[in-house]
């Protein structure tokens, strides 16, 4: 067992982990942040995607000890103090981009990174290609692609977010 310290969703936390403990296991089992899911064991599905130091990573393919000192952001951390949602979360809701909800946290975390990485704009083809690390079995991706396209201008301050 080793004790590691890191920042998760803006709070400094520490946890006792084995060397073999995966980041996703620490988040779910030690920190009870169960919004990050595990959908496969071969790094294909992306249900476990979180941000580490601003980059989207698969938390099932990173050891917890590798996150020592890192800033980790999970789906729970996207929700503002007042309960309001991140624009990507809002657009997923607006465009019915989720059904069973299982792939959703990872999908949202990947989508945010994708949009952030493309300030110049995103075509539908780029969005579809950019989601190659995330699987969804419910939606057929159609509405996920729409939601990400709709979130882009909001996240890049091109249009104000529509009031609910």
């Amino acid at each position, binding site marked *: 067992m*080793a004790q590691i310290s890191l920042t998760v969703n803006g709070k400094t936390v520490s946890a006792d982990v*084995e*060397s*073999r403990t*995966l980041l996703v296991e620490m988040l779910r089992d030690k920190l009870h942040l169960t919004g990050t899911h595990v959908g496969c*064991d*071969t*790094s*294909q599905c*992306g249900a476990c*995607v979180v941000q580490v130091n601003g*980059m*989207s*990573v*698969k938390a*099932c*393919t*990173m*050891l917890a*000890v*590798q996150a020592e000192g890192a800033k980790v952001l999970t789906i729970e951390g996207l929700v503002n103090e007042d309960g309001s949602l991140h624009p990507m979360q809002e657009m997923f809701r607006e465009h019915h981009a989720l059904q069973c909800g299982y792939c959703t946290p990872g999908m949202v975390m*990947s989508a945010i*990174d*994708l949009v952030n*990485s493309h300030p110049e704009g995103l075509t539908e083809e780029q969005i579809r290609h*950019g989601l*190659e*690390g*995330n699987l969804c079995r419910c939606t057929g991706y159609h509405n996920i692609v729409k939601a990400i396209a709709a979130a882009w201008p909001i996240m890049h301050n091109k249009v104000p977010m529509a009031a609910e």
Partner: protein
Amino acid sequence: MYDFTYAKPANIADAVKTLAADAEAKALAGGMTFIPVLKQRLNKPSTVVDLSALGLNYIKLEGGKLIVGAMTPHGTVAASPEVKKALPALAELAGNIGDRQVRYRGTIGGSLANNDPSACYPAAVLALGATIKTNTRTIAADDYFQGMFTTALNPDEIITEVHFPLPEKAAYAKFANPASRYAMVGVFVAKFASGVRVAITGAGQNGVFRHAAFEAALSKSFTPDALNGITTPVDEMNADIHGSAPYRAHLVGVMAKRAVAAAG
């Protein structure tokens, strides 16, 4: 996963020492292949030596060569203005390895040390005739790859840099495995003043290989049509549920033409 001791040395000497001290110690680079292998309990290291604190994440142009530190992630190579300018084919290749998440963590050194027969980087390294610099020596690409998952590296040897000569033209064309998105066939072509080198990944039974017939033809005429009628020996190709050996042999030709066309 079996448990192990985790070590994160701060310099190369300590890393080598830790690896040398224990035959069951294994190095961890980006972990994009190694961690899934550990999860499946296919490997049981006593110590895992994390190479991320060795200061090997950099890209520089020096002496007419592109030098990439071994711990540079694929995403960094793909986005690097230096790489895009000096060796755009390499940026393009790196930008299509795995997915966005894999590219943030997977590294060139890890990919080369593992030498997965369907990895992309070995094709670039071999076609460009790069040299692999380790803590003890430099190894020419032609000597480095020794069959699938086999390299010239000693157990306690660490890749530190990869030195890429800059070609006149180069391009990589990948046909992705539909499921894993690894290269089912990946062809890297590189045209130098001295001739053309072509390396194929994904397709061969013994990992990455150079295609002598393609090289000869392209050295005479660097056009897709120069490859017309040149076949790839079927009996040297992989076969699995995603494609037969004849299909792979055929794709080698198609991807080679596409690479030549893309190189311009």
